[in-house]
Structures are given as structure tokens and as C-alpha cells.
């Protein structure tokens, strides 16, 4: 664009709101989910299920509400986050409905739809209450303590409950809540706030040894404390997934903040040390390694507790699905224990095949890409770190559980974000998406316009 003196020049087009694209993608996602419902019914008994309209329109109504809140309170937000999440959440609902039809205990599509509704309420509430995400920076240490408190909560007698060998639930009324899901959000905010304040010290002070910059001993403190804490969680609650999730996220955020490779090296070494130590001392960790290395052994397959039965059933399901899958409603998800929660990815893989799983992984990758894009576009360091950390924790979570189900890494119990049955995870992940939406709104909002041509006085839209 050439600007000549005296000639009025149209300003460079700025990021548009893309409302049309957002609505179109949202409707598309809902149509896919309804198609999936119909396909499940046709696959099972040749009829379109009665629930298709209830579930499909229910989900559609919820997402329309979420969209209206987003359009009102975060008009410049990224147009893709909500439709992408809608699709994954919807496919999860369909799979849970499908597993419910086989009569596997514990799977309930109605419950999951109710939790989705609560998730949308949390999403809207976060967007409405949190007008400026930088307010979170002031709560850095408060949220740090809240996060730690939530992690420790299940260990408190009377409140904490032990289910399936892991003590990560608390019972309130008739419900079971997994506080660690919310703790991880609070801790990511804490890490972001802490690292923004301490970044320079962590990045600049230190000695150079061989090819890596070694940090000072006292700067190692927070890393060692996080390491110790995640180990403690692992030991006391037998929750391998959450400790891996927390530690990995902290190391990556440290790396993003300081751009020093030495932190990653130190983190990996600490992690390997911790894992080997835990494997030596604790039977349940050792059992996971054993299963990971040799899942085919008949002895492990038949073992009652800590055996490879579930993992192998999942792998068989993926194998029978093949490239194109058996078709929705035509697999045997009942053969996999807990196929509606930890192993929903294996159950989906059987029915949609490699092609469908790759599409789902692409959708996750796009959600993460939009988050990282928000981090790049953000204008202040706290938002950059927070958006980067939140997107990473989502990606890392998908990697840990999908890697575990496919036996790429030792299996640790974690939910597949938005797909697995489970209220706490769904609520926490919807809040996570709300935070990303809030930050992408701030990042994509065009810079304020000046009143005069050259004036210093400017109008700011908040």
C-alpha cells in the first residue's frame, strides 16, 4: 500500500472478528456430532436413535449460548477455539452414549451432557467475571497456595476418597470431584506469574560449563521444590499422570521464560532420576514399567491388579479398527475396561480407525496451535507465558494419555481432555479454554485509535 502526502489511505486491514466463520464452524461441528449419533444408532440396530435430537440439539443450544457470551464479552476472540472444542466434546458425548448402549457400568451420556452444560456455565462465568486476565497476575501467590491446597485436599481424612487405587478424589454430597484438575490451572497461573517476576535472574545469572549455562544453586530452588512436590503427589496419591503433567509443564514454562536449554536438561535428568527412584521403591510404579516393557506376556495379561489386560484390550481394539475403523456402533468397546474414561481413545480408535483418530488428533493440534498463536500475539510477558503454559498443558495431557494407551510411554491414568467421562476434568478444561479465549481477545483486539493525528492522548477500549 503506498501512502502519498495528502492522499487519504485506507488503514491496513486488521484482524477481523470472523463471526461468520465461527458460527459456520460451530454449526458444522454440531452437524458432525448429530451425524455421529445417527451413525451409532444405524450401526447398532439399524435405527436412528431417539436421543439424537435431544443430545444434538442440547449440545447445539449450549454451544449457541457459549457463542453468544463469547460474542458479547470477548468479541475479538479467536474464531476457532470454540468450534474445535465443541467437536471434541461432542464426539466424546457420542462415544460415551455408544458405550452406555453396550451396558458397561459407569458410562452415562446424560451425566456427561449435564457436566458439559456446567462446563459451558463455567466458561461463560469466567469470561464475564474476568474482564482482564492480567488481574490474575496480582493473584500469583494466592493461586499458588490454592493450587497446592487443592492437590493436598484428597489426603485429608473424611473428605478424601480412594477409587481404583488412586487417592485423588474428594466427596462433596453425592459427587466425587478430582481437585487436581483445578489445581493444575491454578498452578499454571502461579508458574506464569512467578516466572515473569524471576525470569531475569533465572536466565542471566550462572556459570558456563562445557556447552550449557548452569544456573546458580539458589535459583534451582523452585525447580527442586516442584520436583519434590510432584514426587510427593505421585507417592502419596499414586497419581502418576498428574505428577508427570505438573513437572513437565513447569519445565516447559521455565524454558519458554528463560530460553535456556540447561533447564530442560536439568528437568529431564531430575525426572529420570525420580522415575527410576520411584520404580525401585514403589510396587505400583514398578508394575507400570513392567507392563510397558512387556505387555504381551501371558503372566502380566492374567494378573489381577496392575496387569496389562486393559492395555492389551485397548491395543487389540485399535488393531481391529485398522485404517478405516469398524464403523460407529459396530466395535466392541465393552471388552476394554474403563473404555469410557481413560481408554476412550482406544474405543474411538476401534470404531473410527486410524483415519478418525488422526482427524481427532489434528483437532487437538489445532486447539493447541490457536493457543500458542495467542501466546505469540500477546503483548505482555505474563499473557505470553500463561497462554503458552495453558496450551502446552493441554497438548502434554493429550500426549501422556494417547501415548499411554498406544504403549508409546508407560501408561499413567489421565483423562483425554473433553472426551473422557468425568466432570472435574471437563469443568477445568472449559475454564482453560475460557482463559485462552479471554487472552486471544486481548491479543487480537486492534490497538487503540488516536483522537488527533499526532496526539498523545488516546482512547482505550477495555
Amino acid at each position: 500500500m503506498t501512502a502519498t502526502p495528502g492522499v487519504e489511505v485506507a488503514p491496513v486491514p486488521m484482524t477481523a472478528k470472523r463471526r461468520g466463520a465461527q458460527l459456520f464452524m460451530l454449526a458444522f461441528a454440531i452437524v458432525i456430532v448429530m451425524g455421529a449419533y445417527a451413525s451409532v444408532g444405524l450401526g447398532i440396530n439399524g435405527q436412528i436413535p431417539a436421543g439424537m435430537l435431544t443430545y444434538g440439539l442440547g449440545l447445539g443450544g449450549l454451544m449457541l449460548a457459549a457463542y453468544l457470551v463469547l460474542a458479547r464479552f470477548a468479541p475479538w476472540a479467536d474464531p476457532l477455539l470454540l468450534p474445535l472444542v465443541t467437536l471434541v466434546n461432542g464426539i466424546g458425548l457420542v462415544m460415551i452414549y455408544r458405550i452406555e448402549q453396550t451396558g458397561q457400568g459407569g458410562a452415562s451420556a446424560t451425566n456427561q451432557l449435564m457436566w458439559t452444560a456446567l462446563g459451558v456455565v463455567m466458561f461463560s462465568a469466567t469470561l464475564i467475571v474476568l474482564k482482564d486476565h492480567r488481574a490474575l497476575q496480582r493473584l500469583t501467590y494466592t493461586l499458588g497456595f490454592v493450587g497446592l491446597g487443592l492437590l493436598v485436599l484428597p489426603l485429608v481424612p473424611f473428605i478424601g476418597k480412594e477409587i481404583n487405587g488412586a487417592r485423588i478424589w474428594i466427596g462433596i454430597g453425592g459427587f466425587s470431584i478430582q481437585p487436581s484438575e483445578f489445581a493444575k490451572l491454578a498452578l499454571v497461573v502461579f508458574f506464569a506469574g512467578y516466572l515473569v517476576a524471576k525470569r531475569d535472574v533465572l536466565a542471566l545469572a550462572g556459570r558456563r560449563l562445557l556447552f550449557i549455562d548452569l544456573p546458580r544453586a539458589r535459583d534451582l530452588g523452585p525447580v527442586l521444590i516442584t520436583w519434590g512436590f510432584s514426587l510427593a503427589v505421585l507417592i502419596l496419591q499414586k497419581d502418576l499422570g498428574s505428577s508427570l503433567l505438573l513437572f513437565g509443564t513447569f519445565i516447559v514454562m521455565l524454558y519458554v521464560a528463560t530460553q535456556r536449554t540447561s533447564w530442560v536438561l536439568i528437568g529431564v535428568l531430575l525426572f529420570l532420576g525420580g522415575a527410576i527412584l520411584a520404580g525401585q521403591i514403589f510396587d505400583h510404579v514398578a508394575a507400570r514399567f513392567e507392563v510397558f516393557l512387556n505387555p504381551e506376556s501371558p503372566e502380566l495379561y492374567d494378573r489381577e491388579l496392575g496387569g496389562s489386560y486393559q492395555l492389551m484390550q485397548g491395543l487389540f481394539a485399535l488393531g481391529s479398527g485398522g485404517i478405516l475403523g469398524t464403523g460407529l456402533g459396530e466395535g466392541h468397546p465393552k471388552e476394554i475396561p474403563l473404555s469410557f474414561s481413560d481408554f476412550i481413545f482406544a474405543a474411538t480408535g476401534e470404531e473410527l480407525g486410524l483415519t478418525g483418530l488422526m482427524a481427532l488428533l489434528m483437532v487437538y493440534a489445532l486447539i493447541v496451535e490457536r493457543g500458542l498463536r495467542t501466546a505469540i500475539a500477546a503483548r505482555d510477558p505474563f499473557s505470553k507465558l500463561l497462554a503458552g503454559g495453558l496450551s502446552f498443558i493441554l497438548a502434554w495431557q493429550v500426549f501422556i494419555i494417547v501415548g499411554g494407551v498406544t504403549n508409546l510411554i508407560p501408561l499413567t491414568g489421565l483423562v483425554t481432555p473433553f472426551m473422557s467421562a468425568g466432570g472435574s476434568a471437563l469443568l477445568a478444561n472449559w475454564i482453560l479454554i475460557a482463559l485462552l479465549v479471554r487472552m486471544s481477545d486481548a491479543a487480537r483486539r486492534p490497538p487503540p485509535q488516536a483522537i488527533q493525528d499526532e496526539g498523545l492522548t488516546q482512547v482505550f477500549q477495555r
Partner: protein
Amino acid sequence: MSELTLLLIRLAFLAVLWFFVIAAVGVIRTDLFGPRTAPASPRKPAKPAKPVSKPKRGEPRQMVVTGGPLQGTIINLTETPITIGRATDATLVLSDDYASSRHARLFPQDGQWIVEDLGSTNGTYLDRSKVTRPTPVPLGTPIRIGKTVIELRK
């Protein structure tokens, strides 16, 4: 329900799933490079203006942060002046101990972008020299503010 119908439904569903992914990528593409039809309209009014203007190497369109903690940030240049500093209402907010709250300003004038130091404590540097008066910024020349380096790009 015959086997064939089910097979077709299955394939159609997978195709639609992938079509969703492709549509999403399409939205991202439009976001990054603008709509496919858009370049036609701004170009048309620009063409008659060309003979009037002297042949130039082209104007900067973006301000890119190439160094410092905000590295990678891109701000599209409009006709609006850009303020840089630690104040939260600045266009580019720095969290740098060496930057003042209202450190510097970039504004367009006669098709050029001018950098002006707003009385900062540690100064603004254009390439190697300190900015003492409003100075035009050539394309690709680094402007240093504390630890942050920015430059203008086409």
C-alpha cells in the same frame, strides 16, 4: 441396513471429519494471509495513485520485535502512532527495568515512519546512534529500547 450402506456411512463420516479439519485450517489461512478476494479491492485504488507518488521501495507494514522478552510479537502498522514503554496503556508493553513508562513513539509522516524518544531515562537507539530528535526509520533497521529490539518490515 445393508453392509454396503453402513460402509458408505462410515466412509462419509470420516470424510466429513477431515473436511472439518480442512475447513478449520482454511479459517486459519484466511486469518494469516487475508481473504482470497480481498487483495483485488485495495489494489485498484492504489494503481491510479502510483504515477503520482515517487517510486519508492515500499512502505513498512509491520513492526516486528526481533529481540528481548517479547521476541516474535508483530504489530500491524496503521495510520495510528505506536507508543512503547512500561505503561500498561502503551501499544507495546515492555516489562524491562531499562525502559521508561513512556519510552518512545513511532508515527507515520509523509509515508515514512518516524521514531521519537519521549524523554526516556536510558534512551532509544536507532541502529547504533542515540535518537535525540524525531528520526525517520528505514526498513529493517533495529531500534533498541532496553533489552528489546524492534524493526519495521514490509
